[in-house]
């Protein structure tokens, strides 16, 4: 990237100022406000009993088995769904990229799940796996209640996530695929590289920045999972993610202090994930070319 001149730089700032201001108002303010609230014992029902407690709420959360259990659950769903989505998304991206006939139809069809509202999708999965109203047990000749056991419930949750967001992954990866110059692939073919070699030695290394961006987006998204679990199990059977713990504390119990502490901790987890990708995997968000 060339160094922009100072006038260009000023113009750039002016152009992004509205977005920055909007972000400060709708994101920075609530984040800082929750940070502030998390230092109080504060229940919406008893505003008079509000008092400063310092980091006590954080100690309560971090010493609670509920938090660590839900943290583990969230990580499990995140890793499980993002890993499968990456592989499936890449396959779908290749299909969309290489489709010779009915290219637009293929692309549209693959994107349908992403266009469905998560709650609606989760409900369809819930009904499908219900032993009374669902078809899955009949289809597989089974007689179990998937959502009533911990591990099978996790399988359904992760499958719902995968079904729902693989198209998003595929779409991002497709963008990366179309950036790879045909010449390179032709040159590789001339050098005698077979399809697998071309994929692993040429395509994937060139796509590394795109893959990292796609993984980052999806990981952040998956870590904040809420609606799928809310509909499928409501967090029962030991499938509760951290966001549901926050919801229970903040929205159901109206415990603003403790709930804000949970929210701030979720925020810190998300920051840590982003930092891991950017520092740990050497991802460069401001440059489209690989930094190595």
């Amino acid at each position, binding site marked *: 990237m060339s160094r922009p001149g100072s006038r260009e730089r000023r113009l750039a700032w002016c152009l992004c100022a509205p977005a920055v201001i909007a972000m400060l108002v709708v994101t920075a303010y609530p984040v800082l406000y929750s940070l502030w609230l998390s230092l109080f014992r504060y*229940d*919406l*029902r*008893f*505003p008079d009993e509000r008092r400063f407690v310092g980091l006590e709420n954080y100690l*309560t*959360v971090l010493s*609670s088995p*509920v*938090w660590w259990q839900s943290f583990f659950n969230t990580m499990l769903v995140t890793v499980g769904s993002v890993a499968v989505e990456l592989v499936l998304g890449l396959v779908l991206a290749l299909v969309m990229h290489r489709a010779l006939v009915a290219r637009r139809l293929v692309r549209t069809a693959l994107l349908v799940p992403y266009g469905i509202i998560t709650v609606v999708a989760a409900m369809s999965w819930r009904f499908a796996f*219900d*032993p*009374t*109203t669902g078809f899955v047990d009949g289809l597989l000749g089974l*007689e*179990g*209640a998937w*959502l*009533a*056991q911990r591990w099978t419930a996790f399988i359904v949750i992760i499958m719902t996530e995968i079904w729902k967001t693989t198209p998003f992954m595929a779409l991002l990866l497709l963008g990366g695929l179309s950036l790879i110059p045909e010449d390179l692939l032709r040159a590789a073919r001339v050098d005698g590289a077979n399809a697998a070699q071309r994929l692993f030695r040429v395509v994937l290394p060139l796509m590394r920045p795109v893959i990292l961006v796609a993984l980052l987006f999806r990981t952040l998204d998956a870590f904040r999972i809420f609606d799928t679990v809310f509909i499928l*199990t*409501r*967090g*029962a*059977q030991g499938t509760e993610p951290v966001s549901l*713990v926050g919801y*229970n*504390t903040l*929205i*159901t*119990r*109206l*415990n603003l202090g*403790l709930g804000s502490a*949970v929210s701030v901790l979720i925020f810190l987890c998300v920051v840590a994930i982003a930092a891991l990708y950017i520092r740990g995997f050497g991802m460069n968000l401001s440059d489209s070319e690989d930094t190595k």
Partner: protein
Amino acid sequence: MAINTLALQARLPAGAHSLNRARHGGLGGLLSPITVCVVASLLSACTRQVDQPTSLHWYVYAERSGAFEQAARRCSDAAQGRYTIEFVALPADASQQREQLVRRLAAGDPDIDIIGMDVIWTAEFAAAGWILPWEENLARQVRRDRLAGATESANYRERLWAIPFTTNTQLLWYRKDRVPTPPATWDEMISVAESLGDVGTIQVQGERYEGLTVFFVSLLASAGGSVLAPDGEGVSLEDEPTRRALSVMRRLANSPAADPALANAREDQARLAFESGRSSFMVNYTYVWPSARANSPEVAAHMAWARWPSVAKGRPGRVTVGGINLGIGAHSPHPEYAFEAAACIASQDNQRLAATLGGLPPTIEALYDEGEVRDIFPFADVLRETLREAVQRPQTPLYSDLSLAISHSLHPMRDIEPEADAGKLRESAARALRSEGLF
């Protein structure tokens, strides 16, 4: 939490026509004040502020038959231009209604005049100062002709905080073609169900949600225990009744008579499973009756009802009471009109309307003797008897916390260890009442 949702699902075909009638019927009431205003303005004395009727907002779940809207229109008409009642629809799920309401109430929203309150919100809203108490002479009138359990649900610290409008409770529904006489106790029911084989399934609410709290509180009350100490502050959960209630839950969940999806079953899953014909028992609210008649007449033909089974022989089963009470928002600019309007909505005529059109059991006891109401509730006597002996869910401002603590401690029911879990439950409930820690 459960009850409003249920009423919504009730299928009463007759309701559809009346809704349309009601929509048009209300116009006259709106027109007359306008006409008055137009005439008056010709005399140059009319300003909009003076003569336009005050508009009161009634926040309540979107009842499907239109009975609530019709009641609101009737009462607007009766106010003769002093006020009109506008219906503001809330979601069907009671926890979502509460989520929306509490944020507005805590922020002092003056738009909320009348609130259709689930019975479990009374203590919370009253303690937080979000609703206004009823004057003692009004309260006496309200208490006079209503079911004691219903008025008790609107009581907190010796004051009446809302006027009971509709009520609800669970009955035992069973298949009379398979079971000649209804079982008296849970143990008996489980044994009978097991002997019936595949079709013996018992439908109850076993998901981890407020309905599980309802199930536990009912079992506990049937065993002679209670969650809260008499002062309403501390935990009671007496040893013996708690263990008995937990033993019933454990035995049921591990019995072949339990539905495989028990850990995920709410009222509606139970209803659907019963309507499929492969179950012989169900504890559920009264909406299942019109629903079964509409969806599955062959099951309805064999459907019978009885009181909730008991836990201890000789002590009748007791169930929690549900329903809608009408509270007055503390920030309402027109509380005197709001009290009058709420009393009108919850009057005998409108309770009859809610019963016949919406299938919602009335809180005024005399209505259970009227033929029109008995046609809708052929089980009226069992229902009234159950309601007379109904039990309150813990009346504490921290009910939501307590319900989370109970439902999280007892789910899944199959893993309950009565001895160990009684202690854990007590510890968790005590923590909830101090509003401490996560659940």
